């Protein structure tokens, strides 16, 4: 346990990294969910062109590693004159990627709702958007939530890729500390534990939301 003093010394740095990780997740988790809802709705209700576009986008993003997407956004796009800060590139990458995965759960949930509900809504004189918003989406959201929760948990873990586009997040700080102290095993284990705590907290919060939103069967 000779490592303990060095570890306590590095707490402020880890804390700074943790804050950056939290900022990355706090921006990309809700944004990703929003993208996922739009993509999911477009795939089900969109016309051939937009529906196909959404499906193609979702399929492409899910077929390519997130790190490749981040490299395209951060290192590749400046080549055609589009530059962004590392933080914007990372959050954009995380948002698009988790949006693509969310859209699968949203789409599945929409398809699981009986057609009759849409027909009933339309027969009552509600518009397509209105029916979707007040009848379909509230149910879809509840059915898709377990899958989407998983996706948010994945996002927390994959936010660690941010260090590969020069951001010094929790993993990035861990690397710096490990290289300075040559204590790779202990440092990365502690970093991993912090992610584990984040993931566990997120899971229990999301489960609580699921329970809160649950509608008991009639």
């Amino acid at each position, binding site marked *: 346990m000779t490592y303990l003093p060095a570890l306590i010394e590095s707490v402020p740095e880890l804390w700074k990294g943790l804050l950056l990780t939290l900022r990355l997740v706090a921006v990309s988790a809700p944004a990703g969910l929003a993208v996922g809802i739009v993509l999911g709705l477009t795939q089900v209700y969109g016309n051939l062109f937009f529906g196909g576009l959404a499906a193609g986008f979702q399929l492409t993003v*899910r077929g*390519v*590693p997130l790190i490749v997407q981040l490299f395209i956004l951060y290192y*590749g796009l400046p080549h055609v004159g589009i530059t962004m800060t590392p933080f914007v590139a990372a959050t954009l990458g995380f948002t698009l990627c988790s949006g693509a995965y969310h859209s699968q759960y949203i789409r599945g949930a929409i398809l699981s709702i009986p057609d009759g509900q849409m027909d009933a809504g339309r027969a009552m004189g509600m518009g397509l958007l209105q029916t979707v918003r007040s009848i379909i989406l509230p149910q879809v959201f509840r059915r898709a939530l377990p899958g989407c929760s998983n996706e948010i948990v994945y996002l927390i873990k994959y936010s660690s890729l941010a260090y590969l586009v020069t951001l010094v997040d929790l993993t990035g700080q861990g690397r710096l500390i*490990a290289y300075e102290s040559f204590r790779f095993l202990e440092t990365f284990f502690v970093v*991993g534990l912090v992610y584990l705590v984040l993931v566990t907290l997120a899971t229990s919060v999301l489960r609580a939301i699921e329970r809160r939103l649950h509608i008991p069967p009639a």
Partner: protein
Amino acid sequence: MVWNALPTFFRGAAVTLALAVSSVAVGMLLGIPIGIGHVCASRPVRTMLWSFDRVFRGFPAIVLLFLAFFGASGLPGVRIPPFAAVVIALGLRSAAYQGQIYRGALAMVERGQVEAARALGFSMPRTMWHVQLPQAARFSLPSLSNEYSVVLKDTALAFTVGVVDLMSRAKFLAMRSREILAAYLLVAVFYFVLTYAGIGLFRLVERSVAIPGLGRHGTRRIG
């Protein structure tokens, strides 16, 4: 310039595929006993499996990779080559996820079938081997296909510990040719093809081992 790099990309793709297949295989070899353990091991063993599960599903892949490569190399007398480090990290992680897959698949086999087998005089291991596993294996195929696609994409992190896989070929090309965008778009196409070719292969296997009438919902219909 970019097209000239195609042969090196194909060599990189072979390494990437080898990483993914080995990791999924390690995950399966360990994941099946883990899944069975989740269902029917004694309490202390289940607690151990639970903590294994927490760590390997709760740590990011890159942290596990660093632990396996840099971490283990810090121990006296231990030297793990990059390729092995990736297979250990992603393989153990996949074992945790596959353990959950097989646990779920075993739970889908109807309880009555186990009781019937026991009543016919099958021992517990024989019931597992002849009744539960053949069905659970089929139920687990769709999730396994998903697991392959996750592991394949995570092997793209192998370049961080120096494996010369598809991703590091793309990095070389981006550096050398200055065609950065083209290099990464090309590697994206390679990963895309590997992902969906694998998923297609799993579909094919699923279809060829399917038993008519036995489906995710068919279990109940038969019983």
